[in-house]
């Protein structure tokens, strides 16, 4: 162990202290994970205010329920699980209420739109993602954007490994089918040099 590692407490150590109602320990956990959770939530709702609400609710819920966390998974997986469930509930509430998710795609700020590479194809893909069943969408988001293993995805989704993998495969196949009909994908070629290699296929 290096000197630096000795000084910085691990998530598990902070959790143990936070279980004894140490606000400083829990606020350190919040600082470590808040940004990642906002990004995760944005992938579900594509609206910063809504994503912030999800993160706020999730972290307060985590603090309230911390005594139930047994440490069988990492704290990160546990808090991701809470956030995914909170996002699901928010989306359900939004759907039954005033805002349709598909409308939110058009509510993106102009600067975010202009930042999109190959915006048209990407926009269509995002709409298709919004139509996926929630579990397929979750598996896709966690795999593609978070680069998580299927073991970690299964922990977060609280399901067997094979189910997590199947949800991801179904999501990808639905997107593929949708775009094979359109021809956009066939004409699309990567513009940038990226890490995009055949190695990804094995992942």
């Amino acid at each position, binding site marked *: 162990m290096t000197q630096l590692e000795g000084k910085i407490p691990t998530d598990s150590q902070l959790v143990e202290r936070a279980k004894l*109602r140490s*606000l400083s320990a*829990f*606020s350190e956990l*919040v*600082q470590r994970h*808040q*940004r990642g959770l*906002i*990004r*995760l939530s*944005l*992938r579900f709702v*594509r609206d*910063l205010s809504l994503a*912030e609400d999800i*993160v*706020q609710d999730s*972290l*307060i819920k985590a*603090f*309230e329920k911390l005594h139930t966390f047994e440490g069988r998974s990492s704290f990160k997986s546990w808090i991701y699980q809470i956030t995914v469930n909170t996002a699901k509930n928010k989306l359900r509430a939004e759907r039954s209420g005033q805002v349709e998710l598909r409308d939110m795609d058009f509510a993106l700020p102009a600067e*975010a739109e202009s*930042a*999109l*590479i*190959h*915006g048209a*194809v*990407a926009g269509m*893909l*995002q709409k298709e*993602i919004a139509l996926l069943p929630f579990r397929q969408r979750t598996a*896709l988001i966690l795999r*593609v*954007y978070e680069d998580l293993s299927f073991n970690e995805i299964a922990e977060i989704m609280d399901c067997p490994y094979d189910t997590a993998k199947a949800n991801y495969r179904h999501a*990808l*196949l639905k*997107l*593929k089918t949708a*775009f*094979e009909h359109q021809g956009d*994908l066939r004409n*699309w070629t*990567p513009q*940038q040099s*990226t890490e*995009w290699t*055949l190695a*990804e*296929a*094995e992942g």
Partner: protein
Amino acid sequence: MSYAELKIRHILKSNDPGAAEIPPEREQNLFAKILIGISQTSMELPAKPRAPRPPVGSPPKSARAMF
């Protein structure tokens, strides 16, 4: 994984909604709101545990006092 699937993964990764820039002041405000939320939660003290019930069949306190 097919070539089309690789393309989809690549398009998604290069257009990640989660990669949008988050203004630092928004992050700070959120952090403050969460701290307020957990402070309020921690102030709600757990309910005081009830005194253990006397064993079944034992006389009431007042009766015991008589002997």
